[in-house]
């Protein structure tokens, strides 16, 4: 019973962090929310995976946040939030989208639980919500950091669900490598364009 309550709290935390990431324009808040999101994912993953493997995912997640944060910290403030060409782009529109995702996730949870028994409603709801939030994120922006955040959010949601059906150490390891790879790729793309070309140097 208590475990279920904590699991639902983790789902709530995922909802809050995803909303914060989507609504906030400050990269510090977004990365902080991502770090907190990995805590909720850790709890949901350990419903089906051993504590050690869940911890590995949590540590990987925090390494991802650290890599992105260090890179972003080194960039100038003027590069903050390049103008988005998407419309509408108001904060309330983003909150509305997250609400739609939450409703869809809540509506689908029971059906998936019936189709794949044993996963547990919090795990399914948390996973679906993160996948949806990641998809919304990807649909709203073309900014490199935001795209990487969207991909990581979506991947976290998938990992929660996949952990329930596949407990292989190799898969856990490879998924961690993919997460870290995304962070490093994101860091590279953030830095790209900030160094002069060989011709410029000459």
């Amino acid at each position, binding site marked *: 019973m208590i475990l279920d309550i904590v699991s639902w709290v983790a789902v709530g935390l995922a909802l809050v962090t995803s909303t914060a990431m989507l609504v906030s324009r400050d990269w510090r808040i977004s990365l902080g929310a991502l770090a907190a999101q990995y805590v909720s994912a850790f709890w949901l993953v350990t419903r089906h995976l051993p504590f050690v493997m869940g911890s590995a995912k949590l540590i990987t997640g925090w390494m991802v946040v650290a890599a992105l944060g260090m890179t972003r910290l080194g960039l100038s403030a003027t590069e903050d939030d390049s103008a988005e060409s998407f419309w509408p782009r108001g904060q309330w529109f983003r909150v509305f989208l997250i609400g739609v995702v939450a409703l869809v996730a809540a509506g689908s949870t029971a059906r998936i639980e019936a189709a794949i028994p044993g996963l547990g409603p919090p795990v399914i709801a948390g996973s679906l919500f993160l*996948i949806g939030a990641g998809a919304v994120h*990807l649909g709203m922006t*073309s900014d*490199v950091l935001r*795209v990487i955040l969207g*991909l990581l959010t*979506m*991947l976290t949601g*998938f990992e929660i*669900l*996949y952990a329930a*059906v*596949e407990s*292989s*150490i*190799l*898969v856990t*390891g*490879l*998924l961690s*490598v*993919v997460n870290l*790879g*995304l962070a*490093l*790729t994101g860091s*590279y*793309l953030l*830095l*790209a*364009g900030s*160094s*002069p*070309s*060989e011709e*410029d140097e000459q």
Partner: protein
Amino acid sequence: MNAPIIWIAVPFAAGFLILFFLRERASSFIGGSVAMLLSLIALVIPIDTALLIGSVSLKISSSIQFFGRSFSLSTADGSLLAIIYGLAALWFFGTEASGSANHFVSLGLMIVSLLTASIAVEPFLFAALLLEMAAMLVIPLLIPTYQKPGRGVIRFLIYQTLAMPFILFSGWMLAGVEASPGDINITIQAGTMLGLGFAFLLGVFPLYNWIPMLTEESPPYVTGFLLWVLPAFTVIFSLGFLDRYTWLRTSPQLSAAMTLAGMLMVVTGGVFASLQKHVGRIMGYAAVAETGLLVLAMGLRSAEIVNVTFLLLVPRGLELAVWALALSIIKRKANSLQFSDLQGLVRSHPVAVSAVILAHLSMTGFPLLAGFPPRLALWQELAHQSLATSFWVFLGMAGLLIAATRTLAVFVMAGGEKAWELNETWIQVTMLGLGVIGLFILGMFPQVIQPFIADLPSLFIHLGR
């Protein structure tokens, strides 16, 4: 000795060492030599078979355990490895001539080794993770450090990352379908997920919009390598799915869906190519059309699926290598691949321009060139199934031919009486010359690749029966 160590760990380690310890100029030769050596080993020494050389017995064992899972390369993989590393060697040797891309050889070796791991890993659906890792390694090659990332590379990253969850989850669902084949709902869900996964990976219509963007904004040689290497391994991966699951192999709906998707890719790729004014984008659309042909080949309801698919894959590597190398040389001279900047370039770069046109014509299926025999074989099989599909494929190829004619017209459009001169270096002339000779040899004597692809059907024991 162990096959996965030789063809996965060694090239990865070689790439790593080249990245940190070798100068760019030497990397082309060393990386190309490593790939060529691996290709020769695959060709000469059979895997899992004892070989007696004098008094020394030599045997390459086939598998290795890694974190509780197996990486395995069988005897039948030998030909495939020889083709893959042989073509990779061609790309690496060409790096020096293209003068492009920092770290192309080192990262290229790592990418090829990861992709080789994707065909060796058991359970085979974990390959999706390795494909994603390879896709991420391509990114530093596509965007030099001094260039802002464009929309193409962002979309490429998104689509490749989206593919992985779909394929992994569909693999799990497919096991459920095998357990209860009568459950239509699970079958439809698994099929849809699998289809979406491969649509993202291969860039099936309309998810290929990143390809022309990338060919416009990134170095042509790197983009060409990407357009060869990722679809080639994705096709092998998808053949593995078809081979493994009986219901996929025998499903008329899946075959029809693949035929439709392939046809749309060929037609749209060809038609859009004929409307472009940028030679790089034309190469991108030609690659889309070629991938469409591969999808069509995999959708054949025929015993020749594997033969036709590999017959298409081998010339594709050569065509793209020649085309991309020639475009790299041209781009260094003209700084742009827009038609307006390339007028009359045939007089200053005759070899590069000839190579572009011949590679392009080969992709349209022009007789005597490498693309002709596989297209003929595919058309023959398609015509048995649907004349309408054959016609649409013909239309797509006609679009590519129009694009080739327009490109040729631009290259020979001289403003004044400009003298003919040869501005390519000897290494560029040699590499392009060898590539073009290869295109003609594969076109006129297609049986030369038969020894390489003859054993490949045994990789997929159920397909083609």
